[in-house]
């Protein structure tokens, strides 16, 4: 078993597990009564069966996958995911402008932009985004809980 095929095998195994959990969940749906023979469970059970079968096939015959040939790639992807997660967490509490400036700064840094340029871009995008896009288009974006008295 080569390392390159491990990804597909692992994913196939995960699909198998998901199919199991999904099937149990579907089985436990309680319905007072229904007007057709299928009800809310038949279709999900069928899907779980198909997913389980395909999962087994994937474990049996995986494709080689080459992922993260360099270590810095894994770091940047993980960091990018964290930046977006933090952005989502701060979006409402800090409001659009501050959270956008912070996200933009961090993201631009990950793409190698010098700190000063990244900071300027962060502020520009936050302000232009708020007034140029959100306000001008009338889109509802958070003003920021911290600004509420």
């Amino acid at each position, binding site marked *: 078993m080569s390392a390159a095929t491990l990804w597909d095998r692992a994913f196939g195994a995960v699909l198998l597990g998901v199919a199991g959990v999904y099937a149990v969940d579907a089985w436990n749906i309680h319905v007072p*009564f229904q*007007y057709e023979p299928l009800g809310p469970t038949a279709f999900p059970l069928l899907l779980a069966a198909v997913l389980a079968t395909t999962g087994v096939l994937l474990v049996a015959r995986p494709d080689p996958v080459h992922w993260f040939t360099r270590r810095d790639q894994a770091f940047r992807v993980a960091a990018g995911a964290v930046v977006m997660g933090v952005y989502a967490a701060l979006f409402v509490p800090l409001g659009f402008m501050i959270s956008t400036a912070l996200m933009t700064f961090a993201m631009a840094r990950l793409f190698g932009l010098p700190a000063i340029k990244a900071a300027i871009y962060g502020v520009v995008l936050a302000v232009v985004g708020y007034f140029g896009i959100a306000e001008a288009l009338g889109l509802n974006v958070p003003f920021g809980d911290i600004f509420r008295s």
Partner: protein
Amino acid sequence: MKSLKTALAALVLAGFALPAAAFEPERPECIAPANPGGGFDLTCRVAQRALEPALPSPMEVTFMPGGIGAVAYAHMNSNRIDDPNVIVALSSGSALNIAQGKFGADFDENDARWLAAAGADFGAVIVRADSPYQTLGELMEAAEADPSGIVLGAGGSIGSQDWMKAALLMRSIGVDPRNLRYVAYEGGGASKAALLGGQIQVYTGDVSEMAGELEAGTMRILAVLSEERLPEPFAEFPTAREEGYDVVWTIFRGYYMGQDVSDEAYDWWVARFEEIYADPRFAEIRAEQGLFELNMAGEEFDTYVKAQVAAFRELAREAGLIQ
């Protein structure tokens, strides 16, 4: 210095002397707990337009879709439980879901301050123009003889308002709603299409959505599910009660606020709604949205909503939808 002190004292005194004038909403907002363009949006637009003269700044309509109001209900009970500036649209559909526990296990009808009604609509029994059934009586007799011989359809699942109308009609002649042939569509538009296309024979819809079809002569209303006959242009249709079937289904639309909103703010909003009920402009706005009169605010509306939820809970229990 002295003048400043006097001015301050005067301000404080004024504040004590006129408590009613102290509250005024800032950036008033109406949350439509659905996507734009739907019934909740229209309910908010009624408030937005009717209250315009009474508000210090225009009311903003925002959207929070999810579970016929479940998301907004949870939101109001966490983030904005005492926010005096926001009202949320509700309908009898939301009340029905509260009664069935579909707003989440944590919430029931005591987790909001029911504010005021915008208006009402009523259920209707609808068939295609060329249907063999001329009266509700004929339809019900056929249903009694063979409950599964008629295909009913409407825009909601088992336990929804449209289903309740069908179930109540069947119950009134002693037929178990479980023996129906009922088809659930997504919304009124799709149900009307199914009726016109002949996939279903009877549609248990609402009166106001029928204006276009009645005028075009493509569908007929056999009976309306109101207590009394409706005003023009619907006055010609008999009520189910007149025909001898005791079924009434009122679809109400209104607003609520967070459960910890101060009495001061709540009373202020109630007073505004009572003002607009007297305004002929409001009647016009309401009619444009296809709503009939239902003027109820404050305590009266609160009692009404809670009684409705209790009645819905009883119905759901009888139908076996909840334990």
